[in-house]
């Protein structure tokens, strides 16, 4: 990726806070976890695109609070996935898509980790995170701390490498890495 693109992206990641500051979810989180929030962003004008980046040490606490708070009630984890940014120091971004079945609102949470750095699992908050975390481990090689059953899910257990990493070639490394 060239310099220009990288600049665009980092600008996006920083985001324009001011547009989101009135959002009740942002207000509440700022009040309870003032030090956990790294940045706020999201595609305008869609309220369901609100994106909050938090510190990885706090992720379980933040998730538990978002789920338990009666006004936010994020009782449903829609999706969890990793995105690889090899040029960043903390190369993996883990993205949580939260939804509230009672309040019908959405929120995207993000954390960043370095390659090989363990991230606390959120299975204790939502059981459904189990397979999603296994998938992120399988395809990107992100280890989740406290996961009871962290093993490959889509690829065979003897597969080498993690295909969704950007350096992994589209056609795979060689025929030996394929299952029999």
């Amino acid at each position, binding site marked *: *990726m060239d310099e220009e*693109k990288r600049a*665009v*992206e980092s600008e*996006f990641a920083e985001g324009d806070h001011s547009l989101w500051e009135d959002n009740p979810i942002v207000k509440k989180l700022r009040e309870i976890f003032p030090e956990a929030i790294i940045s706020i962003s999201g*595609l305008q004008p*869609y309220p*369901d*695109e609100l*994106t909050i980046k938090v510190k990885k040490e706090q992720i379980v606490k933040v998730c538990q609070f978002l789920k338990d708070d009666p006004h936010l009630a994020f*009782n*449903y*984890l*829609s*999706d969890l*996935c990793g*995105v*690889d940014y090899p040029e960043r120091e903390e190369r993996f971004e883990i*993205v949580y*898509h939260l939804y509230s*079945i009672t309040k*019908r609102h*959405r929120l*995207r949470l993000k954390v960043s980790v370095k390659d090989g750095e363990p991230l606390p699992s959120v299975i204790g908050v*939502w*059981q*459904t995170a*189990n*397979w999603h975390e296994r998938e992120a481990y399988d*395809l990107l090689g992100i280890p989740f701390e406290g996961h009871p059953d962290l093993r*490959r*899910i*889509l*690829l*065979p257990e003897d597969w080498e490498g993690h*295909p*969704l990493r950007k350096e*992994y070639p*589209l056609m795979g490394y060689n025929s030996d890495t394929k299952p029999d």
Partner: protein
Amino acid sequence: MLETKELLLNMGPQHPSTHGVLRLLLYLEGETIVNSDPIIGYLHRGIEKLAEAKTYTQFIPITDRLDYIAAFPNNLAYVQTVEKLMSLEVPLRAQYIRVILTELNRIASHLVWLGTHAMDIGAITVFLYCFREREIILDLFEMVSGARMTVNFFRFGGVAADLPAEFYPKVKEFLDTFPAKIADYEALLTQNRIWLARTKNVAVISAEDGINWGLSGPNLRGSGIKWDIRKANPYAVYNKLDFEIPTGQMGDVYDRYMVRMEEMRQSTRIVHQALAQMPDGEIKGKVPKIIKPPAGEAYSCIESPKGELGFYIVSDGSEKPYRVKIRAPSFVNLEALPLMLKGGLIADVIAAIGSIDIVLGEVDR
């Protein structure tokens, strides 16, 4: 005293009732299931990796191969996300065409589910009936898109073509006769003693567990949660259409069956209304020649026949997506299967698999 020992039984991946290449490890104590472990990935084609090597437009036909029973919803969820990223307007007529086709596809998908599910449990007639009606829908799809299953029909900002003139009388004929066909299926099953014995109180999941395990679609509604994305967060023109969301109470195989049966009736109603309301006009909005969404990210989801189907797309401003994550409902629904099977009987495994309606193309991606 006889010694009892836990037995490990392997089921699949080549097994007619696993609906594709699903493998299940069953831990048994006699006939009772102590634990189970679904092994997936046999149909993994690396679609998310592939997406990063294709342009945005080239990826539309690949979405057909996710849930291959219901290609229109896949198309819709994907193009809708890109449209969100690019702030594209979709003309009203195109929105209606999308709704008509996705709802017909919901019926087709539910017919495959009902036919195979009933056949797994032993009711072969239902299978033949369901596939007879499904064929009519597939003929309609062929008329519209040229393909029966891999339709590749929705485009950014609209649809590929207008509905052909011969589509209207055919679809009307189908809609007029279909409710009686549903009554036929129900006459064979709903009060059938064998069906009741095989489905009532089998593979039960509570509403609370369902939410915690991420169930969506008819599976969660069977447990009594009235949540349907078409109503909760309307997309396309669903806010202009009148339909009900059926729910169950027990969360057993029977309730999930009842929910899907009613959904077929509701989909028929939706298509009726959409055909009546559909205005004349453009079928494609203003779309740039080269699809290059600005750097950013978006998530958009729809109520597919299986549940919440979402796409999370990260764009770096180039003509290829930087990352595409597919939130496949079948993947998440399958995760809850061990919970449903636990403590049940081995004979009920196929009833449970059938009732969660998974498609492995979508599970494995």
